[in-house]
């Protein structure tokens, strides 16, 4: 794919790349999202200019170390940001449901009727801690039927039948009995299945899953991932999957969004992210995981330092204090612009900005022909 160091939006890039012909606009399109927490110590810019899109039937994985703003981004979509957090800028265009024109979720009242209808109906969310998100006071069945009746015009009896059908669909054995069980009577894997049943009960167009398998054994994780994939296959829903496990990303993602300190530093198709990462942070993340099948002994590459708190964000490129490719005098002063490499393929690093970076520092085994193109465009 030709690299283009123009700079404009994804749409322009798609046109420039010549295949923007009839691609429908994405189901969910986040642009310039800012979600800030105003605390006594100052403003915490947890999400500070995030752009990402989820197309129809696509699975987009959001990765990054903890504290990078993944969960706050996800919660912003549904108006679930904890106090004192607030969306202070940007838009979240949602084109799902029967809409003819998109609705900007960022502009809706988080406690209002419209967002309440969308939440759990058109877009639903699964959280990391299944035990914590299910109420111990009500049975699984009560919680399922409540969601169903909130969004679908069903009688109590119909809702119960639908709930049991959902429990069966997510692979819970003896669903008629489990309908009357409480969350603490179920294993972690079963709870997560029940959560997924609740999330999918109303046939959402988008499922947001925030680390849904992090607390589970690999054996159970594998089955939950299979389950999400098969439900997606049959219903055509889109999935936004947040995880820090690169193995999971490689397994399920169509596209990957890499976040660092509240911004998106790189995004692209899964194969390109793993085999041709552009951003030094993406490269470093990939190098720090042991690849199974490589045998014993390889020393792992570690990333210097740690993710700072958003209030201690560095000037210039937020990654520069930890970056091995950082250019003194450039990276510590200039906020890197976004370079568009193709449709939905971007990175924020001066190494790809003509006139700022030096191609010799480009990470990975970039094809020399491609490397030459970067300055050639300048």
């Amino acid at each position, binding site marked *: 794919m030709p690299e283009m160091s123009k700079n404009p939006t994804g749409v322009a890039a798609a046109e420039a790349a010549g295949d923007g012909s009839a691609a429908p606009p994405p189901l969910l399109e986040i642009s310039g999202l800012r979600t800030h927490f105003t605390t006594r110590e100052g403003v915490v810019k947890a999400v500070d200019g995030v752009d990402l899109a989820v197309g129809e039937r696509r699975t987009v994985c959001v990765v990054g*170390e*903890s504290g990078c703003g993944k969960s706050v981004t996800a919660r912003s979509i549904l108006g679930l940001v904890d106090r004192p957090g607030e969306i202070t800028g940007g838009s979240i265009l949602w084109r799902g449901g029967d809409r003819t024109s998109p609705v900007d979720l960022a502009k809706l009242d988080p406690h209002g009727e419209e967002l309440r209808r969308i939440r759990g109906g058109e877009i639903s969310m699964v959280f990391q801690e299944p035990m914590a998100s299910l109420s111990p006071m009500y049975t699984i069945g009560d919680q399922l039927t409540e969601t169903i009746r909130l969004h679908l015009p069903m009688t109590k009896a119909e809702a119960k039948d639908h709930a049991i059908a959902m429990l069966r669909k997510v*692979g819970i*054995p003896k669903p008629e009995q489990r309908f009357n069980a409480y969350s603490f009577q179920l*294993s*972690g*894997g*079963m709870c997560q*299945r029940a959560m997924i049943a609740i999330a999918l009960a109303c046939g959402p167009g988008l499922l947001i899953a925030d680390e849904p398998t992090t607390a589970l*054994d*690999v*054996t*159970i*994780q*594998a*089955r939950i*991932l*299979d389950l999400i994939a098969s439900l997606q296959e049959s219903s055509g829903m889109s999935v936004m999957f947040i995880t*820090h*496990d*690169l*193995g*999971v*990303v*490689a*397994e399920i*993602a169509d596209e990957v969004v890499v976040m660092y300190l509240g911004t998106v530093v790189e995004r692209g198709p*899964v*194969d390109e992210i*793993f*085999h041709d990462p552009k951003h030094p942070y993406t490269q*470093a*993340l*990939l190098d*720090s*995981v*042991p*690849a*199974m*099948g*490589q*045998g*014993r*002994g*390889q*020393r*792992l*590459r*570690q*990333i210097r330092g*740690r*993710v700072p708190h958003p209030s201690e964000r560095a000037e210039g490129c937020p990654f520069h204090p930890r970056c091995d490719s950082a250019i003194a005098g450039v990276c510590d002063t200039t906020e890197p612009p976004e370079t568009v490499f193709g449709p939905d393929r971007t990175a924020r690093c001066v190494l790809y900005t003509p006139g700022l970076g030096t191609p010799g520092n480009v990470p990975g085994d970039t094809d020399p022909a491609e490397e030459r193109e970067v300055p050639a465009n300048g």
Partner: protein
Amino acid sequence: MADPTAPTAPTAPTAPAGSGGDAETPLLEIRGLRMDYPIRHGMFGRHIGTVRAVTGVDLTIRPGETLGLVGESGCGKTTLGRCIVRTLRPTAGTIRYHARDGRVVDLAALGQRELRRYQREVRLVFQDPFSSLNPRMTLLEIIGDPLRNNGLAQGKELERRVGEMLELVGLPPGYMRRYPHAFSGGERQRVNIARALIMRPRLVVADEPVSALDVSVRASILNLLRDLQEELDLTYLFISHDLSVVENICDRVAVMYLGNIVELAGTDALYRGPRHPYTEALLSAVPRADPRLRGSGRRIRLSDDLPDPAAPPPGCAFHTRCHYAKAETCAAPGAGPVLLPPPDPSGRGGTAAGPAATPHLAACHFAGDLSLTGV
């Protein structure tokens, strides 16, 4: 009881220290280890049952190695680790430890007093870097605690040794007057490691030492553990449920299911050619960090229904989830299959040469017939 973890040759493998080649002398020999937890009704109520958390484990740890212990949540990994460091008293079995002073003692049988001197040599690193450090103690107090408790150092000498240890784990000695809340997960895990190492142990039981950490921090702690092992001549029992981490750092791997070791082999042999169906299923469930491998390899999915360790299934404990189970053989009441090497000594897993060649043991009735897939 036969010693299944020793080479199959009939020569007595458990000779006392000093009588054989040093390379052959194990550091720790666990035999028939059992740990039962009573289930009580209410807080002080009557005893209504028993969780058989560890059900007859035989395992030998060799000096200088990193032995991995893997398995699903609740299979008894932590319980086994805690029996070894003797924060738990096992219900039955022996833990023969070849001490620094040349003596061989049974840690399982020692009382608290005699135990103390050996507990210096066998230390534990906890899983959770956040809850395992007392927030009211400085790093000096936390790390120096075992030295002071044992009356081994105080005052300036204590500070010197804590400073030295901080340096060793990659933290500035100047941090010793700070409290743990000011540190990140990775830094706290370094403090945990420093605390375990201050007594200059020989065996370190590391219980999920990197599970709660971010990938990049995890890499630095794994590298640190590796460096310390070389520098201080340490032996590790490395408990984890992350099979990619275990492959990276361990020499041998023991796979545990419902309180028992079901497979034990050199890391490469186990990952390339597992001999137990449970190991095969575990390996196939690990997501591979390469999208091009998607859909390649075998996908074996186990049911979520782990049997209750208070009422383990009869026969082979894995038969309720095993895809290869044959009801007549595997579910037959009585003791399940025991750990055995491959019938043919030149068969799979028995290829490694040298004095410490690792037999590839599996506890499955059909281990010799099945052809299982690794990574």
